[in-house]
């Protein structure tokens, strides 16, 4: 006890001495404690998983808080009929392969298979699959993406972590400031285009919640992913209930019984908020639902709800929905899936209902594109987006998007439930950790005196 006290005191007293470090200090190991559910998020689909994954698989670009797109691995240039994505020279995968247009096209072709966000982000591209297929063999300087309709928010969408280039199906061969060194470690990449990160490497420990909290308290970890968070930060990890046509009566039953604030309070936990509209409040969606009206009805029958097993919030909400439907006379079975299997099985026609959680892009129109992708009607989605993309003015576009989102709310087979922010805590001694527009911490620049 005495020794610990003195150590802490020395640390506290240090600023008084000549511990000069106006510039970042290099060296050391960044220690992260993550909860098992964060570890399980292999493809970085949750905010916490994305923040962790970006250490070894950086996105193409970053959307800064103000909405500015800052190139990281590639710059995006507008061309006559679309955009050209030009990889930064010097960007290399951890396996050593340079990031070229072919690799990018291959990575995106796989991302599109896996992630609704990736499908939505690249949705405005004309004949996406053939385009990627054709360019995955080429050696062009830039990946040319012809657009089917004007889409000013493409640049922002392309910064989504779901489109971070990754080679192969393992998910670990990305282009990041760190290269994976085993399952728990990463070492700094000196030639990363944005510069070698300040620590020499990182170390991830998968811990239970209490142990992770203790690790942060005792400073044996500097970053905790999966617990804590700031209510004020942008919350874009949105969860929707999607349904098949035959399950519409059940969805109606649910909607009369659903109390989103209570759902968030009791089963999701902060940082999270009820999301009564298709767009989350942080993107200008409504914060309060219009009064549902009508007394809770009753129905009958059975249905299967798919949800992601690795996400405790989804499990709790799925169980709550099961209870609510039971009260309404409907027997709901719960089908737990891995996130990849959830996307695959839902698209293959399994299940009547599904909980889908997606990290929305930080601009309304791009976020609505993701919602339309979840709704699963590509034709209608494309018509909707073409109308929005035609509005060149950003504010006008955002306003129109919000308006359309309100109008579409009842018509789409997508029921918004809640939106979550990044669950993470930091050692206050960490310097230069910022949030990007997705609400994610970018740990690339982190260092400590």
């Amino acid at each position, binding site marked *: 006890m005495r020794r610990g*006290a003195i150590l802490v*005191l020395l640390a506290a*007293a240090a600023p008084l001495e000549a511990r000069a470090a106006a510039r970042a200090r290099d060296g050391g190991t960044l220690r992260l404690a993550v909860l098992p559910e964060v570890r399980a998020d292999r493809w970085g689909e949750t905010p916490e998983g994305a923040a962790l994954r970006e250490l070894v698989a950086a996105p193409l670009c970053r959307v*800064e808080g103000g909405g500015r797109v800052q190139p990281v691995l590639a710059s995006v240039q507008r061309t006559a009929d679309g955009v050209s994505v030009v990889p930064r*020279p010097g960007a290399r995968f951890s396996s050593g392969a340079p990031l070229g247009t072919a690799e990018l096209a291959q990575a995106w072709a796989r991302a599109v298979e896996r992630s609704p966000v990736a499908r939505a982000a690249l949705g405005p591209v004309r004949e996406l699959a053939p385009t990627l297929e054709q360019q995955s063999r080429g050696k062009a300087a830039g990946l040319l993406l012809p657009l089917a309709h004007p889409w000013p928010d493409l640049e922002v969408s392309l910064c989504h972590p779901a489109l971070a280039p990754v080679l192969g199906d393992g998910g670990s061969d990305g282009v990041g400031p760190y290269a994976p060194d085993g399952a728990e470690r990463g070492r700094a990449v000196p030639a990363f285009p*944005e510069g*070698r990160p*300040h620590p020499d490497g990182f170390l991830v420990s998968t811990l239970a919640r209490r142990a992770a909290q203790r690790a942060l308290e005792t400073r044996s970890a500097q970053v905790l992913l999966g617990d804590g968070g700031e209510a004020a930060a942008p919350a874009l990890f949105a969860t929707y209930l999607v349904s098949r046509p035959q399950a519409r009566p059940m969805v109606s039953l649910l909607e009369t019984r659903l109390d989103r604030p209570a759902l968030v309070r009791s089963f999701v936990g902060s940082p999270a908020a009820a999301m009564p509209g298709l767009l989350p409040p942080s993107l200008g969606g409504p914060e309060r639902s219009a009064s549902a009206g009508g007394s809770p009805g009753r129905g009958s029958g059975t249905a299967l709800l798919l949800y992601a097993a690795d996400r405790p919030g989804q499990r709790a909400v799925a169980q709550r929905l099961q209870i609510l439907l039971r009260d309404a006379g409907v027997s709901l079975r719960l089908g737990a899936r891995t996130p990849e299997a959830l996307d695959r099985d839902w698209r293959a026609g399994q299940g009547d209902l599904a909980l889908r959680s997606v990290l929305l892009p930080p601009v309304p129109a791009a976020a609505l594109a993701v919602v339309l992708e979840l709704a699963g009607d590509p034709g209608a989605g494309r018509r909707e987006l073409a109308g929005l993309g035609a509005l060149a003015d950003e504010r006008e576009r955002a306003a129109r998007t919000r308006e359309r989102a309100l109008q579409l709310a009842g018509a789409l087979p997508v029921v918004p439930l809640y939106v979550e922010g990044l669950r993470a805590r930091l050692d*206050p001694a960490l310097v230069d950790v910022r*949030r990007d527009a997705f609400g994610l911490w970018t740990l690339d620049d982190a260092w400590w005196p």
Partner: protein
Amino acid sequence: MSPGPALVAALLAAAPGPSALEALSEQLRAQVVAAHPEPPVAVAVEASSAALAETTAALVATRLGESGLPAVVIGSGEDAAARARSAGARSLVRLRLQVAAEVLGAGELRSVWRNFWAGRAAPETGPTRVLSAAVPVDRATQLLAAGPGQGAGLVLDPAPLARLPVRTAALATGDLDGDGRPEVAVLAGGEVSVLDGAGSLLARHSLLDLPPAATPAREPFGTLCIGEGRLVVAWARADGSLALRLQGGQLVRGTGGGAPTLGCGASAEPASFAPGAARLVLARGPEREPLWGGDARAGHRLLLLPDGTARWFQPGSEVRVLRDVGAGAALVSWRGEMRVAASSAAAAPAEDRLRLVGPGPEEPSVAVPGRILQVCGGAPGPGPALVLGLWTADGGSELRVVRGPP
């Protein structure tokens, strides 16, 4: 295990002549220890000057540590409780100091710990103990309370000249378009931007297509020099440098370029970027250690060393070693005299202080909201003025102007 508070107080009382702050800290320690707070304890002190607050906080924390209560020092403010929790503390000592005829310390001790079950919006419980102590003031305390730079005559423009969403890597002022008025050039986010005196963007040029450096620096770092109508840019993430000209509202590539330099113009000394770090290494001369940066101007040389000191070489005089100098420091001509405009060496401060070190003992200073990484003289506008490149907590940066009294 830990000695009783009475014993510690007796031992301290027996010590010869404690300062007022030490005496005050001892009184507060005894009160805190008597309340049996749950360790670790965070200490936040608010005072008329940062130095007084820091010193008192460190003293209280040290005393608590000696009593078996591990303590950490955190900054004061409304969110002290949240920061205490983030720092892993379970209790918070929050004090406000007032220095008059006596030094009065008053505040509270409260628990900030929440059990895991308490959810994420646990109630703030009231203080478990009110703390208050008073000792007669002494000279040292008065000095600390006065704080530096009071009435020193440096004024920060209330509005920033420009706000950038990314961090500045280098800053330069000079007349680039030949209109006789200085422009401000800033290297940030992989591009060079040129602003006019009002902060409006005149032109920008991307550096992302430059061949990448083999070992790019993580921190935004580079050098900019304006001279002879050229803007010479060296960026620590690119290989080589380039010269740009402002023509027809556009920055176009000119001839020349070369290596980064320490200082600009005739006095410039060739240098190179240290591999993978935001450091400059001089190509010539005996000083071969990596530098945070420096300046060379009219026979003066300023080398900024990573230990928080600076060496000021003045013509005809011996080298002067300046302490507590951060990365943002430059030689500036101030009312005809060469001075060093220096930031502090504090590690990533939320609020920095720019001071003007000259030959005399007085060091006018001004607090600035951010971390000063670049300083350069010759700012647009009336009177002697400096442009500062400030890194703000949100990950962006601001260009601020500090002026002397007209």
